[in-house]
């Protein structure tokens, strides 16, 4: 009863791999054991026969047939284990000396080691023998009784066959355990993602806290989900904004046009009304553009333009652009930057973010006030713009970067309420944040970015510690 999906299941695959590996390892171990026991005994037998042959051939060379016969008798007498087999035969294969009754008929050539049944002292036994032909037509048979060894080998074989069965059972059981473990670990992730797919964006993958690979995956998935829900919130915010906040300027433009249609008596009045309505529409377009740009930045697609940059010349340019404006408003713009401040990011976006901050600072500073633009490099790269305007009360700071949010003190000044949203979006894109602080009096806006060493993507695909910045 194997269902078709079984082979496609990763859990099953892992289980099968486990079983296969176990089987291969067990077989390897068995082969080694065989080689080290039964194989060793066989090699010992061969070595003993060789040693005997060496000794006997020396005796033959020294003393001829009689010396050989004496030596064979001696050795048989001294053989405590009673496992030695010698048989010396003449040219007619008749017995001259030795402890076998007759020459085994199937031992016909020199060289190979024969394994055969022999009759010894009226008992059947198993022996390994080797034949040596001597000068003068004599034949010598040297061997060892291996009956005990054969029994041992049989025991080993039996044990290994049983072991094979045990290994198969263990492999199957282990495979099931591995598969279930895998399933259980994945179940957490798949249940969460399934819930997300159904539309429940609040679910998160449980992090076991072991800091292992599964935890890393879980954390990456959770980061991804956080980001998706942030983006979704952004989309919701934008649609709400379009529904409510754009209604006001659109109403104004529409009213102007309708009013002109109904009440404008002169071509000049008509022209003036149309011009003002066009300006209103331009304002609406500008808001749209700002919204789209923020959305584009938040989508993260602009990270392709990231390079290593020095923000000092970049700040000098923005300072140059706004210095004249500040002076015009009777405000002094003071910049203090280090010799260099390397960062990793999109030059145009950072420029626009700083421009937005300066724009606000100049707009809200009182006459005679000072706007400071500073950059510091430490654990992070900070760009600070501080003014002496009304500032943002602490309770409003969290909301200040929301789209279309305009503080109480900003209601009377022109603006769309998108400036800080863009700065915050740029900061997030760079893996940093926008901090709004009290300047006593005024506002201090700090654009915090990671150092290039930290921000630049490293070649490794997966970091050992999961410091993924989203």
């Amino acid at each position, binding site marked *: 009863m194997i269902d078709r999906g079984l082979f496609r299941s990763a859990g099953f695959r892992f289980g099968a791999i486990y079983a296969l590996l176990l089987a291969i390892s067990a077989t390897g171990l068995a082969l080694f054991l065989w080689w080290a026991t039964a194989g060793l005994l066989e090699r010992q037998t061969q070595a003993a026969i060789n040693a005997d042959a060496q000794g006997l051939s020396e005796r033959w060379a020294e003393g001829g047939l009689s010396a050989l016969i004496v030596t064979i008798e001696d050795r048989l007498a001294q053989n405590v284990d009673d496992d030695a087999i010698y048989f010396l035969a003449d040219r007619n294969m008749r017995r001259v000396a030795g402890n076998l009754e007759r020459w085994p008929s199937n031992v016909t050539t020199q060289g190979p080691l024969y394994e055969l049944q022999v009759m010894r002292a009226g008992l059947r036994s198993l022996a390994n023998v080797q034949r040596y032909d001597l000068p003068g037509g004599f034949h010598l048979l040297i061997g060892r009784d291996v009956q005990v060894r054969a029994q041992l080998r049989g025991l080993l074989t039996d044990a290994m066959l049983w072991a094979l069965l045990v290994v198969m059972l263990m492999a199957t059981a282990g495979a099931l355990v591995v598969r279930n473990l895998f399933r259980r670990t994945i179940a957490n992730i798949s249940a969460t993602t399934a819930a997300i797919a159904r539309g429940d964006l609040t679910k998160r993958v449980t992090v076991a806290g072991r800091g292992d690979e599964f935890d890393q995956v879980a954390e990456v998935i959770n980061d991804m989900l956080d980001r998706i829900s942030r983006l979704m919130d952004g989309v919701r915010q934008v649609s709400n904004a379009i529904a409510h906040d754009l209604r006001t300027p659109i109403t104004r433009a529409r009213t102007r046009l309708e009013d002109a249609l109904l009440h404008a008596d002169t071509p000049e009045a008509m022209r003036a009304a149309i*011009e003002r309505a066009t300006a209103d*529409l*331009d304002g609406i*377009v*500008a808001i749209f*553009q700002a919204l*789209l*740009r923020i959305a*584009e930045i938040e989508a993260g*697609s*602009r990270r392709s*333009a990231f390079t290593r940059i020095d923000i000092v010349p970049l700040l000098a*340019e923005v300072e*140059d*652009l*706004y210095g*004249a*404006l500040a002076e*015009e408003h009777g405000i002094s713009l003071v910049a203090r930057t280090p010799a260099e401040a390397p960062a990793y990011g999109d030059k*145009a976006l950072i*420029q*626009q973010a700083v*421009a*937005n901050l300066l*724009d606000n600072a*100049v*707009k809200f500073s009182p006459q005679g006030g000072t706007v400071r633009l500073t950059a510091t490099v430490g654990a992070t790269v900070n760009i600070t713009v501080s003014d002496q305007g009304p500032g943002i009360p602490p309770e409003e700071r969290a909301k200040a970067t929301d789209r279309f949010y305009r503080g109480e003190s900003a209601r009377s000044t*022109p*603006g*769309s309420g998108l*400036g800080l949203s863009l700065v915050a979006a740029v900061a997030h894109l760079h893996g940093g944040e926008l901090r709004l602080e009290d300047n006593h009096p005024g506002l201090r806006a700090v654009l915090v970015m990671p150092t290039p060493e930290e921000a630049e993507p490293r070649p490794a695909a997966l970091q050992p510690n999961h410091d993924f910045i989203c």
Partner: protein
Amino acid sequence: MRILVVEDDKDVAGFVVRGLREAGHVVEHADNGRDGMFLAASESFDAVILDRMLPGGIDGLKILETLRAQKNAVPVLILSAMAEVDDRVKGLKAGSDDYLTKPFAFAELLARVEALNRRGKGEGPVTKLVVEDLELDLLSRQVKRAGQKIDLQPREFRLLEYLMRHAGQVVTRTMLLEGVWDYHFDPQTNVIDVHVSRLRQKVDKPFPTSLIHTVRNAGYMLRAEQP
């Protein structure tokens, strides 16, 4: 200038064609990609205004790429509703000289198209720009008016250089921001006006006649005072 407008939206096309003709240009119009491609490839124009999304199976970028592949260097301005930075980059990479997003003010379009005009611009690098009694030396980076030396900050120098290179043409605030500061966004406050007004203090104020003029609802123009 002889200008080709490739634009499928009747209202936009009618408005642009009428406006360009009123400004004294000769205008041809194509309302689909196929005709646009044919006209652009077979006739000679001083500038082409190209919409990106066109009916007829051939879009604006395709026309542009074909022209550039044929070594046709006619100045092209893309006029498109596709406003993302990537779209803009794609357009400029395909070989367009300028990129303007819809909706647009006609004054902006006109100024940009006229700035594309390469006619009358001599070969080789220019070393000196002269308008009336105002002289700007690009090599020694000196500015003189009526023989009198004017001290300018580096940025003011570049601003004046840009205005003088486009002498007699309307230059919009966005063009200045892009051309002089290389900024591709609109600041909320009009910082450009402040810079132009400072330049005027130095270049126009001490002299009997003004060269830098404000063009209402459009931008600025540097030209000799009309008699």
